[in-house]
């Protein structure tokens, strides 16, 4: 029997503007168990020089040519009870563009923004667990709140391409099903709704994950999708040069690996890349992290 405390995989959360939403959901299908949890420190980097506009992928990020986003994130999860986990995510984000000095001067823009972004807190609740003997099915609901922690300002005009965040407070609700077998193979599916406080469009996100979880190894592959329910297209009707109000849709694939290295300490690595999108940079990102389990 694979024990539920085995696992976890960290989530990399960055939020850039022509760019990304959560690289993957911070909500996994595993519960920590009462009094147990883990903390991780991870470093991620993603880059793009192509953007999915309407109707095609275009070479070159407007003004900035290319965008690179690195983030250092603290991710922690703790089991309040066997059925309730708390998840915390705090990213420090550096967004860099590659505009020439002349263009930056002409347009009064800057190539870099960095700072603490938006902290997220999630409460995960798993009311239903069905043990079928050789396999099990778990249903999870999660409620999350993401809100600006630092005092970064909302960027205006094209500077909003290179920005830490949009100072939106977002409430998210997630429903999830996790099926796993005693051999360690698992599949999870989730659907999340994200409701933003300001003029950032609401969105819903899905993630389908399959993987293998054993005591000394964890691996998964996922496909994630986000669709905004409102917002404007970049260079479309309603667009004024302010990027946070744009509709952001994407389909992303990725993988995550984790292995313990010494006692309670483990390392995780992963990669993800966009395969389709709308108003989003065609980014590919990598991360690596140290995980402490307790």
């Amino acid at each position: 029997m694979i024990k539920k405390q085995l696992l976890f995989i960290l989530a990399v959360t960055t939020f850039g503007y022509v760019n990304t939403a959560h690289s993957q959901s911070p909500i996994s299908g595993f519960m920590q168990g009462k009094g147990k949890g883990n903390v991780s420190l991870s470093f991620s980097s993603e880059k793009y020089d192509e953007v999915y506009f309407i109707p095609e992928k275009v070479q070159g990020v407007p003004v900035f040519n290319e965008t690179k986003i690195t983030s250092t994130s603290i991710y922690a999860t703790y089991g309040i009870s066997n059925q309730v986990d708390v998840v915390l995510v705090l990213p420090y984000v550096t967004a860099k563009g590659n505009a020439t000095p002349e263009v930056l001067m002409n347009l009064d823009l800057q190539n870099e923004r960095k700072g603490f972004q938006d902290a997220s807190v999630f409460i995960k609740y798993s009311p239903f667990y069905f043990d079928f003997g050789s396999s099990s099915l778990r249903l999870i609901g999660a409620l999350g709140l993401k809100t600006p922690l630092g005092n970064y300002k909302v960027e205006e005009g094209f500077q909003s391409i290179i920005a830490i965040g949009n100072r939106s407070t977002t409430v998210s609700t997630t429903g999830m099903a996790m099926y796993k077998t005693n051999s360690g193979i698992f599949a999870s599916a989730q659907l999340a709704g994200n409701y933003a406080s300001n003029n950032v469009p609401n969105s819903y996100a899905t993630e389908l994950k399959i993987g293998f979880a054993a005591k000394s190894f964890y691996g998964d592959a996922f496909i994630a999708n986000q669709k905004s329910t409102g917002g404007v297209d970049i260079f479309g009707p309603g667009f004024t040069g302010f990027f946070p109000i744009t509709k952001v849709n994407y389909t992303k694939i990725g993988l995550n690996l984790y292995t313990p290295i010494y006692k309670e300490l483990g390392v995780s690595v992963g990669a993800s890349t966009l395969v389709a999108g709308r108003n989003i940079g065609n980014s590919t990102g990598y991360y690596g992290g140290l995980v402490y389990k307790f």
Partner: protein
Amino acid sequence: MKNITIKNAFFAAALMLTIVSCDSEYKDETPSIAGIAVANPNFSTLEGAAVQGGVVGVLSNSNPNDPSGHYTVFAPTNDAFARLGLINTGTLGGLQNGFLTNTLLYHVSNGDLLASQISNGGTSKSALGPNRRFISRGNDLYINGSKIILTNVNASNGTVHAIDKVMIATGVDIVQSAILLQTAKVFKAPELTFLVAAVVKSGLAPVLADPNANFTIYAPTDAAFKLAGFKTVQDVSNAPAEVLAQVLLNHAIAGGKFTSEQTSTTVVTAGGGSLTYSPFLNGTFTIKSGGITKPANMVIPDIQCSNGIVHVIDQVLIP
């Protein structure tokens, strides 16, 4: 029991895969004019100009000033900008933003103007105000001095035609236009400062400012005056008025003509002298007067003023 579970899991996975479908439903959507400029690498300088000139939002949206909601844009290619030394978006910093915005608006008009609606001798009012005129030359069609090299690109908010030269209109008379350059309202660095001094000293300003006049003017740059022996603007002001007038009148021809409209190879100037033009090639020609050994080249051709057309040149046309 196990079978049911697997079936349920399979069903859930299939449902999720349906939701997690690739977002490709927009492939058939038509981009806006701004979107076309951004997507086409031949319009990257135009894209930068639209950002710097603050018209990206305008060209992303429908036109509130036309019932169709559409614009027509004559879009200069990167090569068109490069003719003016604007070789990339960084070099646009040499221009004043107000001038850049006005220049972009001169390329825009209300409604769809399709190639089939354009004919020799026709005109089209720009969003800036001044009319542009259409000229047929050989097999080519020009708007002012700019050749239309690609027509009828359909955008969600209008129509795009590509042109090979940037069009410039000042909206004011020839003297006021020169003063715009002299006072750095066009380029951030002053230009035509020697010429303005010469016009003032010569007493020709009232003639060149006459709203009822219509001239073609060849306007030598500051470097051209230096090449002709004037070290400073003061040297120009110190020169005898009648000498300056004689030289300046060799730069003026009755009737304002864009490069595309110039078909003869010699012209008589307002001073009674003559100029010789090289054959029209790639949208330009050189100008030779009796007092210079090598012909002058055009630096900025086809500037439309309210009472004529000005071509900025790199030499003083000594009679």
